[in-house]
């Protein structure tokens, strides 16, 4: 028994990647100071994806939701709550989840909620969905994530362009047990990391003023500019996430050797490799698909989960530890258990 209140279930998970593939060859043409091989050696990433210019997170999220309804035996009218996680909302207001309710044709009787938690967004959203189910507020929560990094990557920051890709996911969390039970969550927040990973010029603190318009770094950007202090993000990750992992294990009465699979946010190869080493996780229990999709922000955990499933790595009665971490700083995670 890994949870105290095991009544919320992650029943369906689906993901959507855009059709534009950003290969290392394409990046090497864009950044001729690097070869394809050097890009791979620095990142261990083969490809990432990018949406068509102009596609909004409400469009991408809606498409991801439609894909889930096409793939899974649940109807739109069964959904009574929608959570949407993105770092690129259509507006500051209204909430993009309201727009997706309409675009997706979900009942007008549902509640909706927007989340802005980036790389810890999936585990954050899952915890809220679980709370809504366990408190009796909702029976079936649709949780969509859609992040479009390609809209806020500055052309002059090579490392960011090599790392990030666009991705969307859709999950259904319900009281009825069909898929995985969701365990107890642990969280962490440290707002002192505010400026170490941020999308600048997107709201009231730094409006798009004359400086924004004339700054050559912003060429081609319309929705803000991603900035990341790679060293500080790395330090944060290798410091906090092993501690988070221990807290998740304790809070679910579980030992590390009882975990069958670890799926962390697919942050970067060096972060994943360092976490694996620090936590002494064997190769066969550590899943990564970063090489094939890049860092897809809030979609990275569900994409990895589905890919692990496709590769036959998820079996009945497995305990899977999932953890998201990043912007904020924020971090969160839980253990999900597959059915017997």
């Amino acid at each position, binding site marked *: 028994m890994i949870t105290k209140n095991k009544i919320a279930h992650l029943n369906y998970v689906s993901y959507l990647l855009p059709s534009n593939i950003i290969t290392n060859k394409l990046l090497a043409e864009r950044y001729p100071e690097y070869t394809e091989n*050097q890009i791979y050696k*620095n990142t261990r990433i083969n490809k990432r994806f990018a949406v068509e210019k102009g596609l909004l997170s409400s469009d991408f999220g809606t498409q991801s939701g439609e894909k889930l309804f096409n793939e899974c035996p649940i109807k739109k009218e069964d959904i009574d709550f929608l959570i949407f996680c993105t770092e690129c909302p259509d507006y500051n207001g209204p909430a993009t989840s309201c727009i997706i309710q309409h675009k997706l044709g979900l009942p007008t009787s549902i509640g909706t909620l927007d989340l802005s938690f980036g790389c810890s967004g999936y585990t954050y959203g899952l915890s809220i969905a679980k709370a809504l189910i366990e408190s009796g507020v909702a029976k079936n929560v649709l949780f969509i994530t859609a992040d479009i990094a390609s809209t806020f990557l500055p052309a002059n920051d090579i*490392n960011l362009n090599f790392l990030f890709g666009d991705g969307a996911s859709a999950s259904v969390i319900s009281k009825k047990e069909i898929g995985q039970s969701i365990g107890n969550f642990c969280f962490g927040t440290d707002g002192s990391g505010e400026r170490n990973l941020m999308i600048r010029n997107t709201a009231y603190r730094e409006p798009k003023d004359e400086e924004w318009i004339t700054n050559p770094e912003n060429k081609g950007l319309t929705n803000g500019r991603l900035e990341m202090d790679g*060293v500080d993000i790395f*330090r944060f990750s290798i*410091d906090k996430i092993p501690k988070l992992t221990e807290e998740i294990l304790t809070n679910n009465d579980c030992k590390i050797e009882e975990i069958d699979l670890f799926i962390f946010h697919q942050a970067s190869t*060096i972060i994943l*490799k*360092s976490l694996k080493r620090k936590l002494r996780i064997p190769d066969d229990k550590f899943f990564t698909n970063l090489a094939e999709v890049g860092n897809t922000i809030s979609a990275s955990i569900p994409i990895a989960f589905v890919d692990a499933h496709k590769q036959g790595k998820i079996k009945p009665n497995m305990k899977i530890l999932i953890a998201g971490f990043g912007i904020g700083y924020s971090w969160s995670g839980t253990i999900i258990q597959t059915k017997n």
Partner: protein
Amino acid sequence: MINVDKFTELLEEEFEDVQKGTLKPTTNYREIPDFSSMHALIIIAFVDNEFDVLLQGKDLKEAQTFDDLYTIVKNKLA
């Protein structure tokens, strides 16, 4: 704590493309072939893993050689 030669030798093993015996304590760590930000992260990860010391960006900026890095770690452990 291990001596600076062992420190340099162990750190050298972390860099995939560096031939064994290439790096000395007096080597400027930024002169590792094809040095990139990735190497800085590898150094931070190695020191964290081996000595439970979390180096800061400013530590890496201040250090020139592996000997400098060793001294910084040693001072943090003292």
